[in-house]
């Protein structure tokens, strides 16, 4: 079996006293293969956490179904739970009076692990996250980033098949975020039967980690593809930014004519050096060679050049018609 998770037409309605029912999910479908890091990307209130709660058996769907490792999350939840771990960001979970080591050992016991194995894994992962020296510190003395690392270790110690990461780097500093992302990537690559579902509203995080991303908004999945595919679907042209030592209007016109129809050039100025800067939208990747040749032919020296990649933010903007932050500001929080 290659499908770790299958979600079909999932809906969830929250009835609210004195208010209209809130439709958190309106027919969500996707699947996740083993060995995959799958991202659910969307603004606050889009339905990401609701989806993950249903898949992790914390919440029942209103309709539709979801399976984890072939087990129905609604009916066979006792089979699902030993196979999964959930790690939520932006919370301060944990028994403050326990030490880091005690806290992790306790959760390993809830999964029926043998103590020597649990202790070995706790040591291994605490060293990986750089917290071995803090193992005897009480949980309530830890910073947010440290708590989140312990939370991550708790999720990994039991060696789950499917790891649910719900905004794992929320409220965490840059350094800790980098460590968490790196551990998640390594963890899923370590064994082929592992997979990760990541919800995030950090576009760059999804782009960096996920082999596939579903963009979700108002409880609907708008797109589901590899990040590179989502970006490519936006615009097939290649975009470059080139800063040169000099370029007058006459030279610019000549180069534009040389590049031909379909290749758009815009002349501006570099914000730092104030030197002339070309923004080139080229039909084909290979047209960049012709452009550089043309610039050289005009006796122009290249100072700086970079390829402009479309982002997932651009993909979101194209699909929703609004920027991510604007959508967040307008959405109710589920």
């Amino acid at each position, binding site marked *: 079996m290659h499908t770790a998770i299958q979600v079909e037409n999932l809906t969830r309605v929250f009835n609210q006293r004195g208010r209209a029912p809130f439709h958190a999910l309106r027919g969500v479908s996707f699947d996740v293969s083993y060995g995959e890091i799958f991202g659910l990307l969307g603004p606050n209130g889009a339905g990401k956490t609701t989806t993950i709660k249903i898949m992790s058996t*914390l919440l029942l769907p209103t309709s539709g179904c979801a399976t984890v490792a072939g087990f129905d999350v609604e009916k066979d939840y006792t089979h699902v739970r*030993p196979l999964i771990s959930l790690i*939520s960001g932006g919370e301060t979970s*944990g*028994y403050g009076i*326990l030490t880091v080591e*005690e806290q992790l050992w306790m*959760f390993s*016991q*809830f999964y029926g692990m043998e103590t020597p194995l649990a202790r070995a894994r706790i040591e291994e992962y605490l060293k990986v996250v750089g917290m071995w020296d803090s193992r005897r510190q009480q949980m309530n003395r830890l910073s947010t980033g440290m708590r989140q690392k312990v939370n991550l270790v708790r999720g990994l110690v039991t060696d789950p098949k499917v790891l649910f990461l719900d905004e794992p780097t929320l409220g965490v500093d840059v350094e800790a975020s980098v460590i968490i992302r790196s551990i998640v990537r390594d963890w899923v690559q370590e064994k082929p039967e592992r997979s990760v579902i990541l919800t995030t509203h950090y576009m760059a995080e999804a782009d960096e980690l996920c082999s596939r991303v579903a963009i979700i908004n108002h409880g609907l999945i708008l797109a589901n593809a590899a990040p590179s595919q989502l970006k490519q679907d936006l615009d097939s042209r290649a975009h470059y930014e080139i800063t040169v030592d000099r370029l007058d209007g006459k030279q610019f016109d000549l180069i534009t004519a040389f590049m031909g129809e379909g290749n758009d050039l815009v002349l501006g100025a570099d914000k730092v050096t104030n030197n002339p800067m070309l923004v080139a939208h080229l039909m084909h990747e290979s047209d960049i060679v012709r452009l550089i040749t043309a610039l050289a032919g005009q006796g122009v020296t290249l100072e700086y050049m970079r390829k402009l990649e479309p982002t997932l933010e651009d993909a979101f903007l194209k699909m929703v018609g609004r920027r991510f932050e604007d959508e967040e500001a307008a959405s109710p929080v589920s």
Partner: protein
Amino acid sequence: MKGFLASMYVGLQIESNWTKKWVWLLYLAAYPIGSFLAVIILYGVFGQKTGLLPYALYGTIFYYSLSMVFFDMAFSVHDDREHYQTLKYIFLSSTSYRTYLCGRAATRYLIALAGIAINLCWLVPVLRLPFHPSWGYFIAGAVLGYLVAAGLGLAMASVFLLTIKLDVDVVDALFGGMFVLSGALFPPTAFPAVFARIAEFVPMSPFIELMRRAVSGKVLTGFLSDLSTFQLLGRVTLSAAVLFALGSVLVSFGSRQAQRKGYIDVTTAF
């Protein structure tokens, strides 16, 4: 079993880890005093002639041992969900939530019994309480008492699972009502006949009476006096089995409903 023991460990740490060990032992001894001090004043000072001091004192301390457990179990739902934010992680583990709660209850019960034992060491000689323990009945009663308390605790936990706001008034009312009706403080034979009859069927009544007899070696009042100690043990066994089964069913139902409503990880900052 591992989950049960780990829950006991968490319970012990939550109870004891806030201070030094010797301070906690002092606390352990001193804490139950609050529950029976009023009884000593009431029956030992003002109501000496009633001769009810042993009845009320033993009744109160064994009621205390049960109530500590089931209220603690119920509050642990709220604590784990709102304060520690671990409830969802416990739910998602391989250990059933019932097992976890029972582990927490076991620690609380043992702590309560330890507190009682420490206090009996001075209460019996100082107040000249009848003390002719029947250890067999005491141990059996103590084990069954745990099941009674756990059963009630599971039932209350199921209510708390489906309640977002912690309503302390309801809990207090329940505590007071059961205290009076269970015959812990005075013999329900003092009630009108109908209430006295109801008191016999309050789940904790037979346990408290069994423990009174197991410790004092006597039938101290007319309440449940028509039952031999062995029959009383039978009744406690029955009530423990029924309550524990009922509590288990209710907590399963409560868990499923909480899962349906989305209450397992809800935090209200209440």
